[in-house]
């Protein structure tokens, strides 16, 4: 695509991110670590999802919902991460990698279970490849229900962590 055409697109589209909804109220019973205020790096772990939640996470980090404006960013390595966003049921093959990923994340760390499958196996409860839900293996700090959850819900969960 030639640069002039791209420049025209950029100037015409302008800003298409949705305006920011009001910040979620802080939950006094489940306080978030103070050191993660304003800056949260997220490492996504897919332990066996159908990719529906991934699409919504992609939308949340995309241009329309733009969760980066609240200080959250996707990173490639759990060593760089503060929050592990886990989607999907935990299949047998992914039990060990999930545990290793959590182990490889420096503290203070949070685990967010995104989607109904991560919460209680959703549609796939009892299937032969399923070992359990995320909370069966690791401590879950936040949950985002839905099948799939709307991007606004994912953004709200991350805003609880960053406080912005």
């Amino acid at each position, binding site marked *: 695509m030639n*640069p002039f055409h*791209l*420049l025209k697109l*950029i100037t015409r*589209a*302008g*800003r*298409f*991110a949705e305006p*920011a909804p009001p910040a979620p109220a802080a939950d006094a019973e489940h306080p978030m670590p103070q*050191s*993660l*205020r*304003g*800056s*949260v*790096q997220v490492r996504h772990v897919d332990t066996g999802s159908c990719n529906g939640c991934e699409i919504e996470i992609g939308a949340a980090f995309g*241009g329309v919902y*733009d969760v*980066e*404006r*609240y*200080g959250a*960013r*996707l*990173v*490639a*390595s759990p*060593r*760089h991460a*503060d929050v592990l966003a886990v989607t999907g049921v935990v299949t047998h093959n992914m039990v060990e990698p999930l545990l290793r990923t959590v182990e*490889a*994340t*420096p*503290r*203070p760390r949070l685990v967010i279970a995104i989607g109904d499958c991560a919460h209680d196996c959703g549609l796939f409860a009892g299937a032969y490849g399923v070992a359990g839900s995320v909370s069966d293996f690791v401590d879950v700090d936040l949950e985002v229900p839905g099948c799939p959850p709307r991007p606004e819900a994912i953004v709200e969960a991350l805003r609880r962590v960053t406080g912005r």
Partner: protein
Amino acid sequence: MIATLLVIVQVVVATAITPLLLGVMRQVRARMEGRVGPGVLQPYRDVRKLLAKEPLRADGSSGVLIAAPLVLLVSSLMVVALVPLVTTANIPAVPNDLFVVVSILLIGTVALALLGLDAGTAFGGMGSSRHMMIAALVEPTVLMSVYALSIPVGSSTLSKIVVARGADVTRVVTPAGLLAVVALVVVVLAETGRLPVDNPSTHLELTMIHESMILESGGRDLAWLEVGSWLRLTALLGLVVNLALPWGLADSAQPLAVLVAVVAFIVKLLVAGALVAAAEVFMAKVRLFKVPELLAGSFVLAFLAVTASYLAG
């Protein structure tokens, strides 16, 4: 004494402004992509948070994991101290000609490469190998382009080159000068891991060069690595900007001159960073095996710059 104070001011200002440069670049990119962006102060928050996170060490890794980030940071600070950014004064007796600066940059490069190898993972080794290959192929262009700039001045000390260019406008707009600056821009993009040589925000390990060497570092190790890399960007981008627009640098300790120099540096650096970020929106990363062609092209430009500066007299 005065020179040392000026250099201290330069180091402090450059270090303080470096996260802002990154913030501005990310914000420009975000706005052009139609997003809101996290704000220009986000890198400061990121570093503060990293310092509060626990660093990890795998059983069986060596002290390189702990030492390499610090070596990178200190070498980047040295480069910031030696390159003319805010001031053209030099700490007396400290050598600051081009080859010393390049060698100190290379210490940081080597530290990163060893960190990648020490990780013991395939990604670390791959990043290390690509990083060193690019460093090796960019060397000729670096030396050649500053050589081209040093010929009319008769010295390879960077501050003298900037002073000479500032004193005589006709020197700045010569073909040799322009070619050399263009070649240096390609060098900066290659050395600091920006597009089109390397994508600093990629998550695909097979496309990573810089990122994959730091995959195993967390907490304050990662903070030193990030700040060290950002400082290199500040120093190199600041150098190129000061070669292209060599005005406004302080050479005396008058408070007004120093203030003007600091403001001028900040403005020049942020504008240059914004331009680089804007250009990156239009570019895709080139294949690894096309990078040597890009670097060879920049070498040819630098060689032409040398020839042109001979012909110009």
